[in-house]
């Protein structure tokens, strides 16, 4: 397959590269350009140098958003991966063995579909559902169950709870995807390895920590990057669920929300672009760092 390959390559890549060049690369270049201007959506964009970035440095909402991202960045991957690993393990291996084959718990096919379900639901529907779950009056699922609506917990309106409430929804939505992802990984672990471990007297817990996790490390790493990126986003959910879009008092503010509000509430296109530039570098730095830090020798199967 040597001679005459370039016509194919060029033909195959022309359209995607053109689309990418126009709608992504050029769009980013424009975001970078706008971030040095005081553009407000009409007229010419005035060059203001680094003013937007200086202003950002002094913006308390920006720092609040960064703190919220930090919380999400730690807990979203940690909790989601932990839950997903345990359940993927239960679904694939946890049910004990029969005829020499490790099997999942009873009904594991059913669970797989159930866990994946939240992934399929429209975000608007998720917001509606959890609006009811968190509702402060007696009709709210949690408050209704807890105490019939007396002395309710104001999940979304209380600064102490708001971010955690959003985090719970993010986890609820994400877990299924990772259960399926890890299940696929576990499915490719040869039965002989489990058998050998069993011969050595391994319990479920030992199997989980000493066989499954090391063999799945690559997949866990990928999951970590995905979830970290989700933690940098979280904008859509914050936009439609939280009090005062990012409130109360900035408790759920994220960078995406800040960009959105600067565009639509204040018409500060230049400033919004500057936040976009920061977000761009933060996300890429995170991804590169995660891949580097979590790199370790993978176990060959």
């Amino acid at each position, binding site marked *: 397959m040597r001679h005459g390959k370039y016509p194919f390559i060029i033909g195959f890549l022309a359209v995607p590269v053109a689309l990418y060049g126009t*709608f992504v690369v050029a769009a980013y270049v424009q*975001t970078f350009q706008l971030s040095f201007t005081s553009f407000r959506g009409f007229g010419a964009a005035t060059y203001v140098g680094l003013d937007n970035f200086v202003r950002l440095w002094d913006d308390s909402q920006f720092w609040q958003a960064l703190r919220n991202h930090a919380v999400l960045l730690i807990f979203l991957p940690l909790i989601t991966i932990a839950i997903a690993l345990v359940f993927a393990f239960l679904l694939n291996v946890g049910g004990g063995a029969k005829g020499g084959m490790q099997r999942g718990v009873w009904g594991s096919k059913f669970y797989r579909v159930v866990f*994946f379900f939240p992934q399929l639901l429209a975000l608007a529907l998720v*917001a509606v*559902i959890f609006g009811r779950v968190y509702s402060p009056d007696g009709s709210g699922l949690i408050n*209704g169950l807890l105490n019939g609506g007396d002395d309710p917990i104001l999940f979304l309106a209380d600064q102490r709870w708001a971010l955690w409430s959003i985090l719970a929804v993010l986890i609820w939505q994400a877990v299924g995807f990772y259960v399926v992802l890890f299940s696929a990984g576990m499915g490719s672990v040869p039965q002989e390895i489990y058998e050998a471990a069993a011969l050595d007297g391994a*319990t479920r817990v030992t199997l989980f920590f000493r066989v499954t996790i090391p063999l799945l490390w690559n997949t866990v790493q990928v999951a970590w990057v995905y979830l970290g990126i989700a933690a940098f*986003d979280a*904008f859509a959910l914050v936009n439609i669920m939280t009090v005062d879009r990012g409130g109360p008092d900035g408790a759920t503010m994220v960078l995406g929300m800040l960009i959105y509000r600067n565009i639509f509430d204040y018409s500060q296109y230049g400033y919004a672009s500057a936040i976009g530039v920061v977000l761009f570098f933060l996300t890429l730095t995170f991804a590169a760092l995660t891949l580097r830090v979590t790199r370790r020798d993978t176990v060959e199967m």
Partner: protein
Amino acid sequence: MAGKKGRKPSADEQGTVTVGRSGLGTVVANTFGVIFAVVMIFPVYWVLNTAFKPAPEVLQFEPSFFPEAPTFDNFISAFNAPYFVDDLINGMLVTVFAVFGALVVGFLAALAIARFSFYGRKALILIILAVQLVPLVALLIPLFLMMQKVQLTNSLIGVGIVYLVLILPYTVWTLRGFIAGIPRELDEAALVDGCNRWQTFWRIILPLTGPGLVATSIYGFIQAWNEFIIINTFNSPEKQNLMAWLLQNQTNRGTAWGPLMAGAIITSLPVVVFFLLIQRNIATGMTAGAVKG
């Protein structure tokens, strides 16, 4: 293995060695499974429950677990609401356009990346992956300005193109995994048998990537169908999709939970049906893209 020594390896009647045969462990594992499944599914069940209840029953103080008098009224009033049907059709058009377009464009690109080595291949892969990482909202302004310039705002085509670009990276990356999984010997055998390069792609690789195409399309489908920020920014209400419709009505109507839930169910239905149809393929689809670096 330096594990616990609490249990000795036990051999069952056939002489096979097993793990986790203790009754207690199995019960605990199954109980966990059930509890977690309930947590995952309960909110969904609750939406269904509300959607089939007549209006007065929805607001009852004592919530009931089944509608006393199930009704389709909520679905009917959702369908009669302004722009609902328009936005339903718009959403489908835009989604089908984006998913189909991304599959065609993405398949060719994946083919080039998986089957040829060429100058700049690594850089291309890096750019594709890197850009996928950054939240879309950062691109909202330039995309809008661009579409405005070519007069594609307030049009389904403009939004469709943006969605296509949005789901393209994942499509390329996942299909690349599938194509890389097809042994090159098959291509070579076909070439030896007298196929030209085109025929190899068309008759060998494309059919073998079939399940991959299906699995890949679900992700694009979910993305495009559920997107609302772009379409809400670019288009007026009669040219939006159901997601944008739902959000607008969520704020406008306040307490009309029944029709809203019904609308939300209709919105989620296509994705759920699509998923149930192809769910067998889905695990392979995801691992192909994610794991085989």
